[in-house]
């Protein structure tokens, strides 16, 4: 029963979601929204599970003096201060919660995001360093796309004799656009079609109980 019940629930919910896509008549038309609402309710309730887990894990680290336990009081302090500020003064603009969010959380998130620039540089360097024809092709394409996305690319092209008055004065940006819209788009769509098929196959496996590893893999 421990396995049968989840399989039955999965089958019924999965089939209902498929049916509601093809049948606009009630009650099917309402099922999609209803089930999504149920999920939101479950997910909202589950936030407490996350909060409890966060507090438990860090309290345990502190009490056991586990490795790197010194970071845990900072996490708990941040959590309780933000919670208290929101609960006591509200979360509206100008309140302490909003002040801390705008001046601490947002800049910290922006800092993490800005690291991406350096990581892109290091990853690109590694990708382009490989000495094979595919890496060279990648480097060349990237170079053209980067040049084509900024005005200086076409400006450099127009310095060539006859380029400015020719049929393609913006050749670099045109080639960059072609690279993005044709080979790049074709590759992305191939990935998306393959992924969509994978989604269909995975969904069918789960709806019909063929895939059970998420239940522990038991037969």
């Amino acid at each position, binding site marked *: 029963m421990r396995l049968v019940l989840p399989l039955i629930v999965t089958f019924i919910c999965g089939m209902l979601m*498929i049916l509601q*896509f*093809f*049948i*606009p*008549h*009630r009650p*099917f038309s*309402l099922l999609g929204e209803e089930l*999504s609402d149920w*999920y939101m309710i479950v*997910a909202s309730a*589950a*936030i*407490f*599970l*996350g*909060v409890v*887990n*966060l507090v438990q*894990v860090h309290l345990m680290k502190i009490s056991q003096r586990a490795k*790197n336990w010194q*970071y845990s009081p900072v996490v708990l302090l941040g959590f309780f201060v933000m919670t208290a500020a929101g609960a006591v003064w509200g979360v509206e603009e100008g309140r302490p919660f909003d002040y801390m969010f705008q001046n601490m959380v947002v800049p*910290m*998130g*922006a800092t*993490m*995001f800005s690291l*991406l620039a350096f*990581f*892109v540089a*290091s*990853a*690109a360097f590694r*990708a382009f360093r490989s000495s094979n024809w595919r890496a060279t092709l990648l480097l060349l394409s990237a170079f053209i796309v980067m040049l084509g996305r900024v005005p200086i690319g076409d400006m450099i092209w127009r310095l060539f004799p006859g380029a400015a008055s020719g049929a393609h004065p913006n050749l670099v940006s045109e080639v960059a656009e072609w690279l993005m819209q044709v080979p790049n788009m074709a*590759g*992305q769509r191939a*990935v*998306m*079609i*393959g*992924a969509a*098929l*994978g*989604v*269909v*196959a*995975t*969904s*069918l*496996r*789960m709806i019909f109980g*063929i*895939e059970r*590893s*998420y*239940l*522990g*893999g*038991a037969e």
Partner: protein
Amino acid sequence: MREMAFLPALLALAAAAWAQPEQPDSTASPAQDAQTFESMFEAVCVTDAPNDDGGALEVSWTLSGSASPPDSIRILATPEGGEEFEAGWVLPGTDLFSLSGLEDGVPCSITLEAWAGGSPVSRSDAASATPSAQWFHSRRIGMFVITVLLAAVIFWYINRGKSGRPLFIREIAGLSAVDDAVGRATEMGRPVLYIPGIMDMDDIQTIASMVILGRVAAKTAEYGANLLVPNTRSVVMSVAQEVVKESYLQAGRPDAYRRENINYLTDDQFGYAAGVDGIMVRQRPAAIFLLGTFYAESLILAETGKSVGAIQIAGTAMPSQLPFFIAACDYTLIGEELFAASAYLSREPKLLGSLKGQDVAKLVIMLIIVIGVLASTAGTWWEPANRVADLLRFLTHVE
């Protein structure tokens, strides 16, 4: 192939639906075509709203070209046996109005009133239609046929797999390396870090990731490696805890299961990235799995993992994040390979059969694309090819 004998019937159904012209609502009556000040509406058409759950009508109209446009148009509805009520106002330039909240099966007549200078200047004749609900979305017949076809192919190969016939599945390097990655972590005495993406359980990639987590957890339980699963969503954390626990139970190592290792960090995207980077730098995992839905944090995570010397296996169906994973990780599962992972790792005939069916379905779609391109191109000088292209367009169109 006897099981698939119904497929021609399905295709015939799709072709019939495609060939059927749109039926105009028979109860709608156009207004009189009089070029007078009182009747600036040339044609008013009321139809039942198509492919809906009932209670709705669609009203369309054209204004007389010679009349000066009104300031606004008032829509009045009168259900049979009921009082006239105001359904709404629209600005000039609009020529379509959807009216909902009506009773199914009760005819409703619609009158339009043009207003200018704060008073009505023209009124159309009444046109009526009866709202009703539809039992099948006529614009999704093509999708229905394709879904049934795909399902039939997949199930046919699942049956083939169950019957014990050998199925060739190409090697996926990233999945073949899972054992090596977990083994490496065990030998080095360092943990395995599993990152299930940043989306919630309603995302199919997260679900696929949970399925793979079960397989990876079975390996870590078998090898005795420490498994860490930081989560960005509470529901994913709960599911991950259950999946890992079940895998450890199945592997006969319930004592090795550590609930606190599958923990919640934060819902914030970059807060999560910072938290996971911290775990990587402090705990220096020997193997990192990045499987699921990722956005801008993908490269931040993958590059940090690279910097700590971990063997990294990534997988996502997000086309924009794949280049980052390919550049920074040792192995990358591209799109469909993420969804194939569970079947590939388990080697169960039924699951492998579904994988084979998925490949055949992909072949069918490739054929449809090639035929569609050829037919559309040939259609410029040979009309019958256009009809083939139109049929394929109808089949693949989703509203």
